[in-house]
């Protein structure tokens, strides 16, 4: 294990994209210390900011992280990074494998365009979680992001595969132009969830302010959901399946695109016969 402890205050954001488990697993201590980090256009060494212990490991623990540390784990493909503190923008963006755990909150673009692996955020996340960068056709294409707190706008924008679970409420435009994958919302979303969605699934345990271009399709508990619930349970997101307690209302859309996405909203205390439209 390699342990980093922040020992210096700074105001300009620090870019940590070169600190990757893919690299550090074969770096001796001196090599880890010399890992380049960037502040604006200036280049520094990692040990100018952190006390560093350990070597030759793809498990990195960083203590004292702040929201000014950007691009941590960007593009990583293996190993584990644990952040004791907050994370800045682009956390785990473009990653293809491995695991990132954050004890605090993360800023925007966490897991943007990720291809695989797992990101867990104990606090809140910013906007554009698992999203496509501006202009790109597809966002997240695999992997899992679990957020214990809330998340900002455009969660899962243009995502194509993978799973995003948010325990708190998310902002506006969740699943904007979504092309596949699954977003699980345990406390609902802000305005216009699923707008322009072409395919993919949004599950919500709370009422969603859907656009009029989503059409009510059916009520019940789709078979796949029973299987899926087992997976979600391991991610800390148990979903109700007991039909005596309520029902999943299924909406299809966004018909303005026109899309074949589905939105499943849990309605406690309803049954199939009284499914809303």
């Amino acid at each position, binding site marked *: 294990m390699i342990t980093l402890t922040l020992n210096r205050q700074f105001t300009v954001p620090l870019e940590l994209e070169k600190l990757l488990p893919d690299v550090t697993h074969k770096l001796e201590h001196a090599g880890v210390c010399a890992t380049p980090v960037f502040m604006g256009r200036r280049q520094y060494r990692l040990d100018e900011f952190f006390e560093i212990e350990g070597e030759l490991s793809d498990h990195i623990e960083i203590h004292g992280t702040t929201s000014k540390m950007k691009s941590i784990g960007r593009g990583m493909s293996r190993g584990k990074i644990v952040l004791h503190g907050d994370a800045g923008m682009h956390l785990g963006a473009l990653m293809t494998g491995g695991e990132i755990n954050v004890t605090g909150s993360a800023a925007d673009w966490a897991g943007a365009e990720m291809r695989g692996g797992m990101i867990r955020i104990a606090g809140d996340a910013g906007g554009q979680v698992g999203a496509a*960068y*501006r*202009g*790109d*056709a597809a966002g997240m294409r695999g992997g899992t992001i679990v957020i214990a707190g809330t998340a900002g706008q455009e969660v899962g924008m243009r995502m194509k595969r993978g799973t995003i679970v948010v325990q708190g409420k998310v902002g506006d435009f969740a699943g904007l132009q979504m092309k596949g994958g699954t977003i699980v919302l345990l406390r609902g979303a802000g305005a216009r969830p699923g707008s322009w969605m072409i395919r993919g699934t949004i599950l919500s345990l709370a009422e969603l302010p859907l656009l009029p271009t989503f059409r009510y399709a059916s009520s019940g508990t789709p078979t796949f959901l029973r299987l899926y619930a087992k997976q979600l349970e391991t991610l800390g997101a148990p979903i109700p399946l007991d039909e005596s307690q309520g029902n999943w209302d299924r909406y299809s859309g966004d018909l303005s695109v026109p899309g074949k996405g589905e939105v499943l909203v849990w309605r406690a205390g309803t049954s199939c016969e009284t499914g809303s439209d």
Partner: protein
Amino acid sequence: MLRITGGKVYDPANDIVGEVRDVYISDGKIVADVAGGTVINAAGMVVLPGGVDIHTHIAGGALNFARVMTPENQRSAPVFQHTKLQRGGAGGPTPTTFATGYLYAGMGYTTVVEAAVPVLSARHTHEELRDTPIIDKACNVLMANNEIVLDLLEAGELERARDVVAWLIWSAKSYGVKAVSPGGVAAWKFGGNATTLHDPVRGYQKVTPAKIIQSLAGIVDDLGLPHPLHLHCNNLGAPGNFVTTLDTMKLLEGNRAHIAHLQFHAYGGDDWQTISSESRAIAEYFNAHPNLTCDAGAVLFGNAVTITADGPWQHLLYQITGRKWGNLDVENETCCGIVPYSYKGSNLVNAVQWAVGLELLLLIDDPWRVFLTTDHPNGACFWRYPEIIHMLMDAEFRNEQVKKLPEKALAKTIIAELDREYSLAEIAIITSAGPARALGMKNKGHLGIGADADVAIYHDKPDGRFLFRYPRYVLKGGEVVVEEGDIKSVKLGKEFLVRPRFDPQVEEHLRPVFQRNYSIEFENYPVEIDLLENADVRVLP
């Protein structure tokens, strides 16, 4: 003063093919002899005139819109770091202005022609060209859908139309006249297109695409422009369009004309399933008619951004791909569509397009009349020219690529039957001497006495692969601008333009038309000559 010694010189315009001889340079020109000066030892290397790109899109409203529309390409593109000498930028399918200059010069190209400029965005174009270093530039102004011109053709006022065309050329500070899908873009403003040559254009009674083509070709010849009408035929990209292309070429008998990106106009078949190559029919006609020149507009597999004034075609392409679509309206003059596109070898249509580009280059006998282009950034990026050169010079390598095409595509193309190989002299013609001659640029594309000292020096490799990609030296105006891949000098090149004669009274006709129809004041419309740094004006008699 400079001497290039011991190199094998390929200067086809002066009938020099692979002769070992010295080239002398003084004051930016090729001269007969110099005493002293720097010596570049070119032993074991080949010496060619700097490349001339007759048809590319590197600046202006449309290209810049394409840059803005595709940030994903810029992000993954190679970065040009800011240095003491160089400005920062990005490469990729639509390189930034400074990067464009570095990339062209880095291949050994020293003169390029921006193919399509509406007068309204000419100011923007020249501002970008001013930020495109090293290379010399020129631009063609869009004319075939300009409603002021079309109105005059409708009214039969050919004389005045000629004056207006000349006035517009000078107002845009341009070098030649480009016609894009004559009538088609004007019809697009009504949601239509012009797919037949002899039916009136939407909104007109008498004006047909044929009439526009013949009138403009006549006007261009009459004005004595150095470059003939630069024509993008109707029905670009559509299956079965070779008939339109042949008919268009027949209309041009008696006039000079340059047919742009011919590859996009040489398809048979009725739809996307039956699309086939008709390059043989096109090439046969073309070979027999020396009034025409063309450029290939070849396609390479990979990412591209299609940008053209052919608005209706771009709308169709957007519907086919479901990708992003940009549509720009340029008031009375033209419009423009932008759609990012990926050419895939596994796709039947793309495979046919790939083959047709090469077929035309191989079937047209006279290298002085067919030039290497990819209609950058439409068919592929200009910095991929070396890949095409390799395929032209090495039939074995080409056939390996052909074998990768889908079976179905092989049945619809003739590329597998062709075994012609280009010689290095012929490559020098299609990349430099030929386009320079077609552009009427007497000081470009050759190494004779008095020519501009634009020289590309490459290691002498037997196959084309390394040629152009890694020049050993590139000289522009007698100065070494690239050495072993490093930019050494970034002096701004010239901009060529012509000033054709016109009756100044024509402004009295234009002023009220402007006040009625345009969003800007008449006085603000023409680009002032002071905007151009290093303008090289040719005043026509």
